[in-house]
């Protein structure tokens, strides 16, 4: 199984939330692809590390992230038991539309730098809340993982 966090942008708020799930505590600023706006435009799942249960943690940015989340879940179901299940986690956050728009403007030569910094400032301003959301999800999956591990064999 893999964890796929999907939001408007895959390299800002969504990546901060997903970073809280990593097995080895990592500052999101140290993640290789954090704030990589070029990579974000490719609409590809970005592997950022491993969850405590050994599963891959991915982020994905898409303007229509709610539709993409449905699509990913449906594909996972279609893949069935033979496939690797995919836990799809849509990430929405107040102001994520603004960060998304600014990340697009950040691609403009010269003035783009201003918008890029604005994106980073928005993430920094909401850092605690984003990490708390990620932590809540981490606790949730660890709880389920331990429950499953403690189940006696039939």
């Amino acid at each position, binding site marked *: 199984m*893999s964890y796929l966090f999907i939001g408007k942008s895959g390299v800002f708020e969504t990546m901060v939330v997903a970073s809280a799930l990593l097995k080895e505590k990592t500052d999101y600023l140290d993640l290789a692809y954090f704030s990589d706006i070029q990579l974000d435009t490719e609409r*590809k799942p970005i592997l950022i590390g491993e969850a405590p249960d050994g599963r891959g943690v991915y982020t994905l940015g*898409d303007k229509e992230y709610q539709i993409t989340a449905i699509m990913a879940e449906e594909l996972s179901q279609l*893949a069935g038991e033979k496939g*690797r299940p995919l836990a799809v986690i849509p990430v929405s956050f107040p102001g994520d539309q603004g960060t998304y728009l600014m990340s697009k403007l950040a691609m403009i030569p010269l003035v783009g730098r201003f918008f890029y910094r604005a994106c980073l400032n928005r993430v920094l301003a909401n850092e605690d809340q984003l990490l708390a959301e990620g932590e809540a999800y981490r606790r949730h999956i660890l709880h389920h993982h331990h429950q499953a591990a403690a189940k006696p064999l039939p």
Partner: protein
Amino acid sequence: MSLPYFDKTHPRDFGRIRYVGRDDRQNQVYVLGTKRSDSGQLLQELSSLTGQAEQFHFASTMSYVNPVLRLGGWLSRSLRLPAIGRPLVLSGIKMAFPALVRLANRVTVDVQPGVTQ
């Protein structure tokens, strides 16, 4: 017209993968509507994440959507005026039909048995 979901979808159906039947090689055939026309690569990436990429074959029909079909679909589904939109949809589909049949034939040739289309 008698096909399930033909001109009957809602905005909430975007992203939902719907089963329409099987081809003559018993491959399952599904349809999917998204708001973006360039979702082929993304679908490929997502199917790779499930570890079953080789089980899927994605065929985009977006390049076959002509202006008449687009206008008819918009009137019928977005403005909820099927009485005006549906005849246009039918007319647009008729125009695109030969090309759509060629696409379906190409897909059938490309796909091995046991693959979802």
